[in-house]
Structure formats: C-alpha cells, structure tokens
C-alpha cells in the first residue's frame, strides 16, 4: 500500500498514452460547445458523471479482484460506438505496457495474453492498481480523476486557456470527483452479491456521437 504508487499511476506523465487523447474535448471545441473555462467546466462535469462514473466502476471492480474478462465484456456493453471501443483498447494496450514495466504481476501477464489486442483501459488500470497493492477505492479515484484531467489539459492546448484557470477548475471539481469515485467503489463492492449489473453504466449521447465524428476527421490534433 504505497500512496506514491497511486500518484505515479494517476500522474498525467505516466507513459501510458493519455497525452494524445482529449477525452472528446477536441470535438466539443470544434463544435464551439467548449470555448472558455466555464464551458470547459460544464464539459468536465458532464464527462465525470457519465464516462467517469462508468470507468471508475470498472476500474474499482477490477482492482477488487472481479474477473477482468467478464469486466471487459461489461465495458464493451457500456461502449456502444466503435471509435471509443478502439480508443479504450489501444489505451489499454499502452497502459498494459507501462503497468507491466512498473508493477509486474501474473494477473497483468494473464490479461495481456488473453486480450492481445488490448483490454479496455479502465480494466488494465484497475489491474495495475491491484498489482501495486492499492485498493478499489484508489483505482476509482485514479480513473475518475483522469476523465476530467485529460480534457482539461487538452483544452489548455486547444484554446490557449490559462493553465491556472484549468487547475482551479480541477480543484473545484475535486469534491465531485471524490464523490463519483466513492459511488463507483460502492458499486464495485456490490458486484459480489448483485453481479455486474451493479456497476454503473452512465453514458452520454453527445460523447458517443461526437467521438465517431472526430474519428472520421482527417485533420486533428488528438487521437480522440
């Protein structure tokens, strides 16, 4: 149980490919839906309570020791568009590489062998957290934070926002981020008695639609 290990895994500089993804904010910027710090905050809040809650639940359940292959199917059912499934699996492969280098474990090796094309990223992240000896709650926190930290960083680059404003935004969202992580971890704890349906499946229609639109662009800065 190392606090520093959690900080390492949740750090945006952890070399697992996240820097090249905007979490949908590049598409939202193109549609003029996000254009300043207020609209960015609204975007991040919406993503936190949809994608964030769902991925945090999957990460927490994996960290709690649920079968990662069943959770990978559950992640597919919660990801209705191919563009986002492809991104999740590509980031899962990249996370797997970094996780096996930093916190090697037989469980990571097994998942890598069973899903050579990559498991969904939150599943790999949850297993990395588990390999580092951390808790489901901590897996949920890392996953939830990432769903807002990624778009906030990307928006700073896309809109030349003041990075201090972006950091302030993330600080403002921190209580909500904790609450989402706690709800996700609670749900993960119920999987043992209620099955995988206990896990959140919060979704957003616009994030799904615009992710496919973005994937079809020929010119873009971010991979998603």
């Amino acid at each position, binding site marked *: 149980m190392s606090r520093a290990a959690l900080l390492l895994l949740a750090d945006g500089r952890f070399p697992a490919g996240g820097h090249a993804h905007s979490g*949908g904010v590049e598409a*939202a910027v193109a*549609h003029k*839906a*996000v254009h300043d710090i207020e*609209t960015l905050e*609204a*975007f*991040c*809040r*919406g*993503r*936190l*309570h*949809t994608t964030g809650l769902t991925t945090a639940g999957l990460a927490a359940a994996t960290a709690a020791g649920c079968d990662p292959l069943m959770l990978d*199917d*559950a992640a*597919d*059912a*919660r*990801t*209705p*568009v*191919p*563009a986002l*499934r492809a991104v999740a699996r590509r980031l899962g492969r990249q996370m797997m590489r970094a996780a096996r280098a930093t916190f090697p474990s037989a469980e990571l090796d097994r998942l890598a062998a069973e899903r050579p094309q990559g498991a969904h990223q939150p599943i790999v992240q949850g297993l990395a957290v588990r390999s580092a000896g951390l808790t489901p709650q901590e897996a949920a926190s890392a996953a939830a934070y990432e769903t807002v930290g990624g778009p906030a960083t990307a928006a700073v680059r896309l809109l030349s926002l003041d990075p201090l404003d972006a950091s302030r935004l993330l600080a403002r969202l921190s209580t*909500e981020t904790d609450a989402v992580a706690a709800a996700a971890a609670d749900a993960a704890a119920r999987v043992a008695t209620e099955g*995988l*349906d206990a896990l*959140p*499946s*919060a*979704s*957003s*229609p*616009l*994030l*799904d*639609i*615009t992710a*496919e*639109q973005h994937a*079809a662009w020929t010119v873009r800065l971010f991979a998603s």
Partner: protein
Amino acid sequence: MSSASQLAESRAPFDPAAPAAGTEETCGHPNSVRATARIRATYNGRVTTLPQLRSDGPFHLRRMRTSGKAARVGIIGAMSAPLGGDRLALDITAEDRAELDVTTAAATLALRGPTTAPATYDVRLTAEEHARLRWLPQPLISAADSNLHQTYTVKLAASSRLLLREEQILGRANEKPGHLVSRIRVHHAGRPLLDQHTAYGDPAPGWDGPAILHGHRAVGQLLVVAPELDVRRAPVLLREGTKDGCAVLAPLAGGPALLATAVAPTPSALRELLDEALRHALGE
C-alpha cells in the same frame, strides 16, 4: 378495463399542498398506481396468437388487425401516468417463432404526481428463438417537476430479432424538463450486449452541458438486432454539426446489432434522424 377506470377515478386531483421535494417517500403514495400489463405471443404453426393480453392500470391493451402472420398490439393510455410514486411495468414476450409488434397510441407523459417520489416504469422485452419483436412506442415526455425512473430489460435469444425505438422529450413546449433517469440493459444469447444509463433534468449533474445534451431537448435510440446483420460495416454519421441534431449508427461489440444514438432540438427532428438511421440499418 374496469380496474383501470376505477383507479383513474381514485386518483386524487393535483394538490398543491402535496409533500415538497425532499420529503421522504420511499414507497408509493396511497393514490399511486401499481400496474403490470402483460403480452405473450406464441406461434401456432400458421400465425402468431396472443394467449395472454392482460391490461392493467394505465395500460389498456388492444389487439390490432394485421394482414401477415405477425400479431400487433396497441397500448392505449387509460389514465394519466406515470405520476410520481407510480410503479408501472410492461412485460412483453415473443415466444419461439412468434412475430409481435407493439406500439403506443399516444406519447407517454410523465407528470408530477401527488408525491415527488420517483415513478418507475419498467419495460421487459423478451424474444425467444426465431421470434421477432418490434417495440415502437410514441415518445416519452418528461414534464416539469416529474420524476421518472425508466428501465428496459431486454433478453434476446441468439436467433431472435428486435427493433426497439426509444424517444425521450425533455419538457413540453417552453417548459423545463422533469428528472428522467433511464437504464437499458440488453442481453443477447446470455451475454451483455448493451448497458446504458442516462440522467437528464435537474438535479442530474452536467446533463445540459456540452458533454451530454448541449441544449438539445430530444434524445433517442434505435436498436436493431438480427442474426444476419452485417456488423462489420463502418459507422454512419447523420449530420456533421450538432446544432440541428445529429446521430450515429454503429455496430455494437457483443452481437449482431446496430445502435443509433441521436440528439435533436425537437421531437420531429429526432424522429427524422431515427427514421434515416433505420433506413441505413436495413440497408436501404
């Protein structure tokens, strides 16, 4: 149905002194409705018959004329529902080889009831082997101050076919929407195919922001499941911008299924998008 009309009469008129938001109301109000309507369709070797057609509460079920071997059922609203505190369920099963179409005669309007406790509306759809089930209701409208939790629980056999359309309208004209939470879970051949949960209207966080609806007031889905569907196809994007509504039609991962997701400023724009998605899905 007499039971329905009795219940309708027993409804208390709207009472402005009813418990305000935040009042503890874990179970239904005395005036709330508990109703489960059931439709069971079977194939008799020639046509589809309806051995069970059980109206209940607000659901008045009517067999409709068809020319082919399919059976068709219209659901007619026998009272205003769902209101806060109601517990409504529809249980619809197409047994082996049966072909069943179910529609609603009018839009379903979720209103604030005598209580602010959520109403529940559970739709259970089951299609057994080689069965075909079409669920094409009119839209669900979330009126101001309503609070509705809707669930879809769909179980599909490997060789079954499904066409499901769901349209949600957030608020009547120039009205703030109520709180509308829905979850759809679809299993195909025993495996999870789709699991989605949405929450619109205050106090759902971020629902109207740029990541979720961005001002749109009509949102809907169209799910097509059929064993012969070619799901290797590329996603279809309907309208590139987002202002006048947009949609994507794309294959799901866990089975032979295509899902269209659409948002639009108006109900009619939403229907146009979903109709267009359906034409693409059927390969027209």
